[in-house]
């Protein structure tokens, strides 16, 4: 057996008490392609960050070429020859390909740049990788796929030994993906090891020798890829107990009240869905599948290229969140700090914000009424505050989320879209939010729920639509839903 290039020994990582990685041991050999798979939140990103030195492990050791890495940091990892290609590219669009490749390590003669030499060197590596990009072009003129190749070239020019690729094919077309695989193959022949993260299971079988499965921060298994099939891989990835108790439904589901037809925009490729009165419709899918984008499109937060929305059998045009709210639609965004709250304003300002009109007369706020409304929702949601004017940023995550929910309850919308409603909040607050959703349903409201936590999605939803790559790839009814089925559609 060849000498190990990188070894992770019993790595654990805790974030203020929450375990993101628990006793993970993996290794990678020179010239090997190792794929890393797992659901959302399985710990893949944390693992990458531990390797690249962005996070320090709480416990455990990293060994590189037989030596222990002490005090890992992004600079140290780079020095050792560990390169990363993230999904978001880090380039200066107005500079040329060559300038980007040599950014921060320009070849100079005195203070003069040796432009020609840098250009030649860049072209050389590009050709070696079998790509066809002119290094004198500006990066902004390149396609996403080409930009990604430039990132790889940049990494290769630094003489890397290990390249970590985080979902490199997500934004690529099929033919571009083939090219990417070709490049991976060439890198491997140069004895570069590759740690490849992908949500597309086909790719795992295409390119990797071994596969590591993570689940809930734990290392499930490392297997030679040829020894397993897709079904087995999915089994390894899920295998989680449903655990939590979900409140049972007590009311009937009614007629269709919202119908989105053929929604197309930058991120959505022809998505249609129907929501019935009194229903919780789950939207499943992996990160980047287009769930949030679908929600935002329905809510008018992002423009549509084409598509039709029908509410109560009538066609409506929703061009802004303002329109959506006046039509009785609310969106509880996933990012409460940047999109949900006025962090440096009081609880009362936040709760009444989306529904200020109801406490106003001719644009003048009735403070008494506002305080009443705020109080009502603070009590209904059991938000722990010490005064109405307390700034939202001083609250805990769970209480902040309740403030956002209170704001939307105050609008009395009949359709509510919950985007990751329980992200980053504790178990107690989670179960309160489940109870709340049930209560809303009992009051005749309808809910679209987006969640990356499959047990929660399965537990709460009456019906689940699965998205992948901007499309709706499957519909699963409550009676036949399993985590395996969802993943099957979500990785298609």
């Amino acid at each position, binding site marked *: 057996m060849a000498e190990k290039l990188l070894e992770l020994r019993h790595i654990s990582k805790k974030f203020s008490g929450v375990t993101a990685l628990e006793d993970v041991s993996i290794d990678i050999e020179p010239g090997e392609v190792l794929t890393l798979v797992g659901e959302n939140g399985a710990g893949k990103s944390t693992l990458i960050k531990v390797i690249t030195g962005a996070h320090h492990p709480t416990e455990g050791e990293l060994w590189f070429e037989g030596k222990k890495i002490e005090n890992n940091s992004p600079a140290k990892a780079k020095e050792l020859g560990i390169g990363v290609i993230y999904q978001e590219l880090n380039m200066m669009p107005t500079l040329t390909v060559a300038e980007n490749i040599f950014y921060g390590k320009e070849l100079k003669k005195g203070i003069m740049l040796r432009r020609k030499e840098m250009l030649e060197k860049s072209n050389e590596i590009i050709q070696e990788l079998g790509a066809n990009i002119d290094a004198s072009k500006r990066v902004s003129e390149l396609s996403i796929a080409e930009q990604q190749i430039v990132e790889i070239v940049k990494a290769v020019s630094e003489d890397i030994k290990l390249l970590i690729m985080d979902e490199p094919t997500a934004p690529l077309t099929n033919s571009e993906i083939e090219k990417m695989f070709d490049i991976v193959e060439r890198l491997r022949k140069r004895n570069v090891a590759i740690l490849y993260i992908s949500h597309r299971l086909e790719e795992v079988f295409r390119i990797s020798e071994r596969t590591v499965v993570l689940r809930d921060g734990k290392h499930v298994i490392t297997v030679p890829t040829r020894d397993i099939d897709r079904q087995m891989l999915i089994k390894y990835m899920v295998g989680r107990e449903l655990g939590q108790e979900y409140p049972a439904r007590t009311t009937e589901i009614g007629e269709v009240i919202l119908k989105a037809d053929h929604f197309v925009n930058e991120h959505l490729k022809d998505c249609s869905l129907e929501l019935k009165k009194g229903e919780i419709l789950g939207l499943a899918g992996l990160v980047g599948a287009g769930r949030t984008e679908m929600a935002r499109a329905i809510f008018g937060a992002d423009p549509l290229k084409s598509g039709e929305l029908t509410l109560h059998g009538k066609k409506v045009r929703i061009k*802004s969140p303002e329109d959506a709210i006046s039509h009785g639609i609310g969106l509880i965004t996933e990012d409460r700090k940047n999109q949900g709250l*006025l962090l440096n304003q009081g609880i009362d300002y936040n709760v009444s*914000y989306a529904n200020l009109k109801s406490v106003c007369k001719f644009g003048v706020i009735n403070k008494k009424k506002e305080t009443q409304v705020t109080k009502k929702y603070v009590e209904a949601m059991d938000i722990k505050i010490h005064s109405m004017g307390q700034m939202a940023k001083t609250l805990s995550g769970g209480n902040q989320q309740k403030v956002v929910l209170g704001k939307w309850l105050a609008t009395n919308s009949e359709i509510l879209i919950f985007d990751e409603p329980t992200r980053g909040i504790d178990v107690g607050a989670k179960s309160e939010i489940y109870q709340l959703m049930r209560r809303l349903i009992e009051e005749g409201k309808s809910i679209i729920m987006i969640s990356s936590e499959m047990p929660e999605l399965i537990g709460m939803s009456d019906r689940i639509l699965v998205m992948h790559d901007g499309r709706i790839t499957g519909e699963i009814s409550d009676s036949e839903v399993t985590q395996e089925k969802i993943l099957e559609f979500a990785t298609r």
Partner: protein
Amino acid sequence: MNKKGNGGVSKVLSQFAILIALIILLIFFSVTTDGFLSTTNIFNIMRQVAVNGIAAVGMTMVIVTGGIDISVGSMMGVASVCCATLMVRGMHPVLAVLLVLLLGLAIGTAHGCFVYDIGLPPMIATLATMSILRGVTYIISGGLPVYGFPEGFNVIGQGYIGPVPVPVIIMVICFVIGWFILERTSFGRYVYGVGSNREASRLSGVNVRKVIYGVYGLCGMLAAMSGVVLLSRVNSGQPKAGESYEMDIITAVVLGGVSTNGGEGRIGNVIIGLLLMGVLLNGMVMMNIPDYYQRVVKGFVLLLAISYDKLSQKRANKK
């Protein structure tokens, strides 16, 4: 009713600090100069503060949304000279004033368009109009003072109601209206909301465009009002009227605890900032400090106020 002491203890303390600075300055100038505390001089300060104060109300709203308008000085000039020219050509003063206020509103609204629809940085958009408006002021006046107004017009700038100068009354009215808008209307609430978190505001159904147009429009109109008061006070339309006043106004607003990051600050406190600036400017004149040196001092005061705001922001974020 300012129970929402934004920023809690530290903001209250910083407002306290400004108040103490004001008192120290008052003591300092009354000891070092003759006649600083005389009734005439106090009224002088008040009238000067009034001119800046009217424009500061609009500026406060703009800065609370996270923007800025550095064209207010030039706007005062244009308003002043336009109003003067209209009256000299025989228009009734009331009509002339109303027209000039409308002009301010229109130009301010145009700022809103540049900032929201075209997406220009407010500083740059208003830098451009600052130059344009000042140029227009010189063109209209031919570079010469315009004078000879109907009798009675000077009441706006020089009159008294009881013992109180009319400009001060106008300023107080503007502040009360400004306070009412910011604290009691949905528009005012959205001004704070947009300054705190523009995206969250949009996603809460706020028409952000209306808010941006509104604050810049009001700011333009109030600057024009300032220009009219200034015109009446000096009783002639000076092409240089209002030049570099934006500096004093912005400094006063920032000293009043309005954060340039947006979303924070209460209009009531801006009065303290205005008084501090008024006392400082007047005191320096009384001490016969040359204009050149005064400019240096003013620049440092602005730097100090803004640095203090940023640093306390940073400290709050670290917590």
